[in-house]
């Protein structure tokens, strides 16, 4: 390996390793603030600027909060339970973080500094989408490792739940991405993004919209976000697989979870939301990266919103939803996409017809599946005794 190549790799990847953890810190602050506002609270605003005697006076909306949390966690004692498997207990949080970090490199974000470094531009990898799913699958292993190595029954339950959930939701996730791959004819993330240049985002097609919704729901489950946060369900199994983790190992899990959120949102942006496409990139190319990150944050904002609003599903309903609802729907969507592709869309009438017919088919299918799965759930009437 030539020194130049090493230098290029470092220049291409190290900024990613810096930018996303920083964004992670910002996201935790954003999440706490947003949840607080949803709940009529103020949220963190007292922790100020460190090191000065007047730090308390300049609290900057509590932006110091993630820094304080980070420093605290770094120095917090690390406890390994006596009966735990020490090696796997140590490896699990690392393994949870690494795949999430790895796939970040394959997001087609056109940072200004990567333009001159085409040889190592990782997103030129031809099988980027496949690679993405292969690597994120490792996350499941890490979570099960954590649950198993902790020697805690709640951790074990959490690990088992995580395996069942992630393996199930991987399938609708991949199948909904297949539509895009079919249409573009390439697994290359950059080519997929380029195919949507301008306003030709796939989310603005009937099959793309359906696939995006399925993809987003499945990605919530993949990243253990509410309402699919069963592996770490607080009211049921304490903290799930990371019940026995303290200090920096816990912080690593936390970091890994958020990076995975960035990664999967980034993939959603690549596949459906036009990648870095947006107004103004023709004149200012670096805006492309800004747009990309802004779109990621838009998706994350929706995740936070859902977290503040929805209760959690039960484990059997969760599995049923993946297998009995999302899976048939995503397969049907592939067929719909195929037909839509071969119907000539020259004038506005045919376009509208394609939209109406496609969404109509998908809507009827969704309704039917819903009826099949849960026929008897409805609001009830009550009587009054005088």
């Amino acid at each position, binding site marked *: 390996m030539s020194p130049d190549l090493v230098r290029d790799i470092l220049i291409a990847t190290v900024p990613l390793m810096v930018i996303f953890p920083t964004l992670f810190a910002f996201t935790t602050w954003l999440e*706490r603030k947003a949840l*607080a506002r949803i*709940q*009529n*609270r*103020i*949220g*963190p*605003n*007292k*922790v100020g600027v*460190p*090191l*000065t*005697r*007047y*730090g*308390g*006076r300049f609290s900057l909306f*509590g932006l*110091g*909060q993630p*820094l*304080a*949390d*980070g*420093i*605290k966690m770094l*120095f*917090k*004692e*690390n*406890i390994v339970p006596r009966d735990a498997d020490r090696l796997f207990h140590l490896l699990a949080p690392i393994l949870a973080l690494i795949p999430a970090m790895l796939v970040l490199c394959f997001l087609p974000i056109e940072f200004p500094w990567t333009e001159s470094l085409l040889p190592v531009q990782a997103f030129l990898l031809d099988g980027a989408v496949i690679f993405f799913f292969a690597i994120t699958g490792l996350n499941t292993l890490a979570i099960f490792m954590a649950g198993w190595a902790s020697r805690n029954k709640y951790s074990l339950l959490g690990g088992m739940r995580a395996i069942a959930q992630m393996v199930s939701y991987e399938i609708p996730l991949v199948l909904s991405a297949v539509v895009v791959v079919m249409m573009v004819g390439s697994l290359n993330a950059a080519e997929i993004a380029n195919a949507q240049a301008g306003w030709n985002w796939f989310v603005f097609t009937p099959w793309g919209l359906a696939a995006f919704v399925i993809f987003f729901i499945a990605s919530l489950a993949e990243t253990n976000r509410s309402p699919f946060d069963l592996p770490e369900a*607080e009211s049921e199994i*304490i*903290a799930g697989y990371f*019940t*026995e*983790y*303290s*200090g920096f190992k*816990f912080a690593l899990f936390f970091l890994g979870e958020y990076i995975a959120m960035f990664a999967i949102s980034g993939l959603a942006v690549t596949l459906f939301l036009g990648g870095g496409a947006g107004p103004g990139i023709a004149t200012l190319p670096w805006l492309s990266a800004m747009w990309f990150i802004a779109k990621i944050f838009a998706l994350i904002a929706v995740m936070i919103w859902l977290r503040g609003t929805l209760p959690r599903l039960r484990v059997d309903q969760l599995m049923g939803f993946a297998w009995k609802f999302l899976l048939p729907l995503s397969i049907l969507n592939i067929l719909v996409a195929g037909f839509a592709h071969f119907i000539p869309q020259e004038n506005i009438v045919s376009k509208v017809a394609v939209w109406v017919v496609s969404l109509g088919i998908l809507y009827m299918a969704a309704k039917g599946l819903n009826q099949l799965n849960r026929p008897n759930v409805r609001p009830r009437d009550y009587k009054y005794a005088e």
Partner: protein
Amino acid sequence: MTTPNTSPGIDLDDTTRAELERAGVIVSKVDTLYNWARGGSVWPLTFGLACCAIEMIASATSRFDISRFGSEVFRPTPRQADLMIVSGTVTKKMAPQVVRIYNQMPEPKWVIAMGACAISGGPFKQGYNVLKGIDRYIPVDVYLPGCPPRPEAVLQSLNYLQEKIRTQDIQSDPAFTAGRRQYPVPEFTGTDLEPPYNPEVWQPPANPNAQPLEEATA
């Protein structure tokens, strides 16, 4: 709120520090940064015992909002918590669990004894199943009286705790000097807990009228 000058090694009085700061030089120690961090991010344990737990929850709600101080992250597992708020009556049946949970918490850790019952047994002190104060088994940092204390008092006790943390020195902090503080978990006997208190953290108050044991029992 100003950060107290906590520099036992270097004697730097406040005026000098202020002058230096005016000149653009911030003189500080790792202690200050670390204490700022752990004081601003005290995560309590989701741990309710009795009536006081409701006021503890109320202190996290919209009107009082403990999250302003960075403490709304109630962790359900002791492994990730910094602060145990003993909120309510500790019965003898519950005391071993409380000590066990304290032992499970990683250092540095703090305890707030919330309410009269947790401090001394409170109105239930004469009961046969009531522990007369959790400080018999674990060290308590802040005593928060009241029956139950108002949510504002919970916030104030948190502020006192943060104040206490800011003046701590890593070199003499018990959290770093003696490994994880673990105290023996009391065991059930026929009538009471054994031992009835932990002599390491608590000694019965001296009785000025104490009689020798033989006389008293005679």
